[in-house]
């Protein structure tokens, strides 16, 4: 039986013709479906590959330990480092129920730990939580805090597109050298600025005051944009 339909003008359809089974679909229709499906699969695959290669890869969340949903730290790789750092660059936020906090594995680079939020938080609470986790230090693993011990968080808030972090005077204690100073400054700045959508930079205050210089070295006269080049790939 061919798939061709009979001409409509064929005179006098017989009863047999009326009960004739419907014509089979033509092979061309099936091929079209297959081609369409293949195209959709290709486009989907390309989009997935592009997202994987160029998009922001969210770091895997650390799993809470039993009885403690916040401090269950599993060191994870830092976010993909962009080529250099651009002023005004805003990294996509992590998952809504997480923050990433930057510590150092080697005194030269920063590495993020992803920490689950204990509950839903507003943007300001999220900033404060991230900074408190930073000052508390890493949990487990080989990470170390780039911020001196004993530094307290006095306040953390957001003004326009800048996170403002007010640290206690203990933050002014000498760190010994420029690399350690840069790491400490950007542990604070990256943690403050890379967790919140729309925040492009961070301003550090000491004891509620705007200071021009920290450790006689780091310029704090204005906000600092995050330094993604310091983050370990």
């Amino acid at each position: 039986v061919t798939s061709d339909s009979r001409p409509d003008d064929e005179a006098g359809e017989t009863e047999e013709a009326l009960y004739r089974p419907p014509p089979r679909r033509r092979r061309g229709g099936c091929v079209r479906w297959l081609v369409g499906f293949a195209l959709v699969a290709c486009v989907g695959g390309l989009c997935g590959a592009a997202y994987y290669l160029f998009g922001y890869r969210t770091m895997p969340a650390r799993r809470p330990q039993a009885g403690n949903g916040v401090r269950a730290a599993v060191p994870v790789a830092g976010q993909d480092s962009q080529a250099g750092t651009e002023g005004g660059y805003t990294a996509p936020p992590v998952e809504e129920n997480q923050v990433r906090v930057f510590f150092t594995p080697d005194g030269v680079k920063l590495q993020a730990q992803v920490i689950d939020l204990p509950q839903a938080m507003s943007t300001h609470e999220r900033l404060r939580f991230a900074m408190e986790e930073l000052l508390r230090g890493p949990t487990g693993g080989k990470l170390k805090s780039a911020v001196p011990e004993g530094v307290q968080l006095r306040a953390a808030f957001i003004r326009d597109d800048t996170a403002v972090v007010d640290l206690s005077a203990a933050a002014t204690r000498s760190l010994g050298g420029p690399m350690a100073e840069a790491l400490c400054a950007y542990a604070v700045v990256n943690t403050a600025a890379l967790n919140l959508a729309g925040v492009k930079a961070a301003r550090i205050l000491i004891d509620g005051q705007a200071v021009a210089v920290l450790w006689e070295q780091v310029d704090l006269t204005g906000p600092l944009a995050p330094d993604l080049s310091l983050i370990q790939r």
Partner: protein
Amino acid sequence: VLTRNSAAAAPDLGGRLSILTGAVGRALVALRVDSSPVASNSGYRIFTAGATLDPLSKQYGGGQSPVSLPSEMAYLPYQELSVELARMVDTELARAGLTGAPDRLRQAPFYLLRRADMPAVCLTLGYGSNDRDRSRMNDAAFVESAARAVAQALLDLDRRLQETAGGTNR
């Protein structure tokens, strides 16, 4: 021009900036020693001010218009020359046999580097927390070779400035 020749006579940053502003120098090389809780970290590192780290830098034209820059953005016109100086210092230090840290050319928002009205770098000669670096930095021959390397880099930069028509030759 040395901003200080002993730790006891160290002027504050404002004083050092005044010395820089009033000096006839054409470039700044700030010498420091680094330190790390990781004892194995070693080698020299060279910092330049980071225009790309400054969220305001784009708004002020990325260093193309020094006239309209506020004072704290004065480093931007010298950004390229500072990076060039850093590379020259790196080349000469490597030629002198000094060992650099793996990521030895870095940007950082350091006060003097941003405000110096000239190409400026901060050179950390090594880590005081590393035994090998510390003994090297106490070795007169090492210090001599490092000083010669920096001086050669400054001469290279000076030659470069003189060759560049309309450059920042003061």
